[in-house]
Every structure is written in structure tokens, then in C-alpha cells.
């Protein structure tokens, strides 16, 4: 589904990501973990076209998407969420997901229909599935942090992605919010047969849902495999997990 080959990125003399290989199979839930500054966000930005790699390739379904502009990548079936919450704050919750439906279904250049009425049913169904049905008319910026993250997921889902990249989906959440949103993610991924690649700080979260884990350290993958293998890896324990 997603293949990353020899991906590298240097900022000046600093190699933020260095020769990373990664493969995520269809329907798989995979995580990239690593200490702060390991290069996780850079890796994501390289995959989604927000940064141009210095070397290496990114393939989705065997199709080379290296260096393709972010707005095109979305149409190729890859959705993403950001580490900082990224919604349209002064639009309503409904208008947020509606915008994503409109552009995804080719309505963007339509300057004559009334957008308000388009895809209402789809929007409402989507909002219900992410647990925001009751807040359709709320201004998005006034939602709680956890709800904004849910909405962000909703915006990404409206483009009907096959693969979803989530950069720290539970960052800044309380323990209960974390728990809820992970349950939500897992359920939606199963329902839609989504391929999921995410980064995360919370090891409990990672080991509870990821089927595959790659550990990034100083821009390099130092271990990858199923949770048990990664947990047992001596190098990983030394640099990251600690001995416990």
C-alpha cells in the first residue's frame, strides 16, 4: 500500500531523515515512534509532499508520488492530520467536513450552486460516525480540543482516503480523551478497511493498536516489526523505551 524507499532529508548539514525504508500493507495499522526530534514529523511531511526529499522515493499502490504537491496527493487516496490541530476555525463543524466533500467530489469550480445544501446526508452520516452529530452547527474553533481532533479526522475521512497519516493523533489530550479517540480510530479503520500510519508519544496507545511498529532514532530506523519484536529489541530499550 505505502512504500518508502531510501528516503532522506537534509536541512543544511543536518540530516533530519536518513535513508528510511518503510512498508505498510493494505489495512494495516502501523506506528512510527521515537524520541523528540527523531524526525517523525519530517518523515510525515516528506510522505505527504509538504517537504521535498533530498533522496529516496514514496510509492502509494506502486505509484510514485515523490515530490507531488500536497493538494494532489489528497486525490490519490492519502489523507492526513496534523500535529497542531488543523481545522477551519470560523466555519461550522458541518461546513468543515462539507468543504472536504465538495472539493473531493469535483465541486470546487462550481460557482453557482448553493453549497449549503450539497451532500448534507453524507456530512451528517460522517459526523455521526465520529461522534460529532450533535455539534454540526457549532463554530469549529469553539470545540474542545479533543473534539477538534475528532473533527480533523472527519475532514480527512471526507476525502475517502485509502491510507491515513496521523501525526500524534492524541497529543495534548487527557487520558480519557486519548482512550476515546483511539477507540474511535480503531473502529473507523476497521469499518473502512483503512490503512493507518501514525506517530505517537503514548506507548500504551501504540502497543494497544499498532500491528507494526518502526522506531526512528536520529533520523534512522533502528528497529521495526510487530510490537513484541520491537519491545524486545535491545537497541530500542537502550535509546528509547528504557528498562521497564
Amino acid at each position, binding site marked *: 500500500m505505502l512504500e518508502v524507499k531510501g528516503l532522506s532529508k537534509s536541512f543544511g548539514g543536518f540530516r533530519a531523515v536518513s535513508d528510511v525504508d518503510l512498508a505498510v500493507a493494505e489495512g494495516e495499522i502501523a506506528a512510527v515512534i521515537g524520541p523528540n526530534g527523531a524526525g517523525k514529523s519530517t518523515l510525515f511531511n516528506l510522505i505527504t509532499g509538504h517537504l521535498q526529499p533530498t533522496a529516496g522515493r514514496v510509492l502509494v499502490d506502486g505509484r510514485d508520488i515523490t515530490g507531488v504537491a500536497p*493538494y494532489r496527493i489528497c486525490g490519490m487516496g492519502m489523507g492526513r492530520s496534523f500535529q497542531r490541530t*488543523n481545522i477551519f476555525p470560523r466555519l461550522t463543524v458541518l461546513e468543515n467536513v462539507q*468543504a472536504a466533500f465538495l*472539493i473531493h467530489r469535483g465541486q470546487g469550480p*462550481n460557482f453557482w450552486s448553493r453549497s449549503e445544501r450539497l451532500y448534507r446526508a453524507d456530512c451528517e452520516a460522517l459526523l455521526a460516525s465520529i461522534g460529532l452529530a450533535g455539534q454540526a452547527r457549532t463554530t469549529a474553533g469553539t470545540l474542545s480540543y479533543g473534539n477538534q481532533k475528532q473533527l480533523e479526522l472527519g475532514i480527512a475521512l471526507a476525502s475517502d482516503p485509502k491510507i491515513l497519516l496521523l501525526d500524534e493523533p492524541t497529543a495534548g489530550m487527557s487520558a480519557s480523551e486519548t482512550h476515546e479517540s483511539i477507540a474511535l480510530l480503531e473502529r473507523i479503520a476497521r469499518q473502512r478497511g483503512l490503512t493507518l500510519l501514525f506517530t505517537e508519544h503514548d506507548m500504551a496507545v501504540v502497543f494497544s493498536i499498532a500491528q507494526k511498529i518502526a522506531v526512528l532514532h536520529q533520523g534512522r530506523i533502528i528497529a521495526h516489526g510487530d510490537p513484541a519484536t520491537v519491545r524486545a529489541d535491545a537497541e530500542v530499550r537502550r535509546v528509547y523505551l528504557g528498562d521497564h
Partner: protein
Amino acid sequence: MKTNDLASRIPWTLVVFLVALVVPWLGSRYNTFLATQIAISGLFAVSLNLLLGTTGLVSFGHVAYFGIGAYVCGILMKTYAMPFSIALPAAALGAAFASLVFGFFCVRLTRIYFAMLSLAFSQIIWAIAYKWNDVTGGDQGLPDVPYPDLDWMNSIPLLGDLRIAGQFYVVTLVVVGLSLAAMRRIINSPFGRMLTTIRENAERASAIGVDVRRYELAAFVVAGGFAGIAGALFGIFSRGVFSDYVFWPKSAEVMIMTILGGIDHFWGPVVGAATLVLLNQETTSYTEYWSFVLGTILLVLLFAFPGGIVGGLSAGFAWLRRKRRGAAGPETGSAEVATVEVKRA
């Protein structure tokens, strides 16, 4: 909520349009003159707000497209004796085409650089208008742009009673009304929604698949085209096209109108245009220090209404509605209404 107000059922837009339409029959040439100026400035300000309020683009050079519209229409009608029905669309197309060319470069820059480049282009247009004597009349301008041929109106009962300025006002109001309706439609369309996503969060917009630059350019072209229509009307209204129509203070003026009225509401710029035109006239007739008085009034208005006049009013109404629905009894509610209404009067 929706059914409780009779006010929300009245088609206010139509009411305002009809009231405005009556102005020339009231007999005052001066009022017709002011009303024409307000209608044209209102259209110009709304076209700017398509960039400012809807897309979040700050253009300091919007007057360029107003000026191009004025020159295209003026030159066609005066030099080539073309009818208004050809000159007006030509003005819109000319302005839209110029927006396409200049906008192509502008949207490649962001924020303050976008603003500066748009200003630079408008100064180029000004320089051309000022120097190209053979076509634009240079610093002498293009005086005596004719009125459109409105003789057909003379056979229509009420319209026939009006002087040509009054008849042209009716034409202006219809053109402005149709243009505003079209822009409102565009803003509420899927295309318009894409523009608001760019304003709200350009990074996110591109992540859902919006080609930000292309949509910004499209907005720039549409806004430029409508500014061109406003310019064409203005050239005829003021009986000539002169190079200071494209000089940068005009860009500042339309921006003041837009912000003063409120950029978050479709009608904000129209209210701002009306306010500025009237303030301008009033203060000029009372004192020679009008720009000082005007500046002070603007300062107070901008501080009192950070969301512009319309933003301030709608916040006020929302507050009232909450009060009414809240625990306070009906008496206090209506007393509150009364005080606020007094304040506004």
C-alpha cells in the same frame, strides 16, 4: 429561533433596493448624486471584500481594476462611440484580464508581499494612464465621457419624468444590484466555500485537495472584473476618467470602506461605503478640516466596532437575543431593547 422573528422573513435586500430606487423621484439632484456614488462605491467595496473577507487576501492595488474598467468603458464610449451595452461588458472583461495577468504573479507571494506587489501593479497602471496621452489623455484625463443612450426610457411613464442623471442612476442601481446578486451567489457556492477554507487555513485547504494558488487567482479575477464594472459606471457618473482614479489613495479609500463596514458580512462593505461617502460629504460642507474630522470619526468607529459597523450591530443583536431568551423577565428584556435602540438613534 428561525420562526420567532418577523424581521427574518422580510426580504430586506429587496426592500433596500426598492427604497434606493425611489431616490431620483424625490426631486433632489444632490441626493441622486450621493445615491449613485454610494451604489458604485458599494459595488467596488464588495468586490474588494471577495479578496479581503472571503479569501483572506489583502490587495492594496484593487483600484487598478476599477481604473481599467473606467478607462476601457470611457475610451470605447467617447473615442469609438460604442454603445454602453458593449462598453460595460468590455470594461469587466478588460479588468478581469488584467487581474489574470497581474494576479498570476501576485498569488505566488504571500501576505505583505502579495499586498506590496498588488500595489506595485496598480502604480504601473497609474503611470500608464498618466503618461499615455494618445489613449488615456494623460494628466488631462478623458473628459466628457457621454451618458449611455437612454432615450428609450422617455417613453416609459415614470422613467420618462427623470433627468438623464436620474435615469443613469436607475441603470447604475440595476447593474450594481445584479452584480451584487452574482457575487453573493458566488460566495455561497462550493467555489466560495473553497475560498473561505483558504482564508481559514491554507495549509489544511491544500491537504483536502484545494489548489490554493489557482483558487486565489480565480478570486482575484472575479474581484477584478466586478471592480471593472464599478469603474465603468463611475467614469460615466463623474463625466470623465482621470488618472487619479487609479492612484493609490483610492485603494486605501475602498479598503477603509470595506473594513469600516465589516469584512465578515456580505453587506458590510456597502454599509461602509455609504457611511464614508456620507461622512465625507457632511464634514466637507461644515468644515475645511474635513480630513481631520473624518479621521477622528473613523478612529472612533474602528475602535468601537472592531468587526466593522455590521459586525458590531450583529454582535449587539445576538446579545439582545440571548438577553431575551435568558432568565430576565419580559419587562427587562424590552427595556433593554429600548435603551439600545435609543443609543443607535
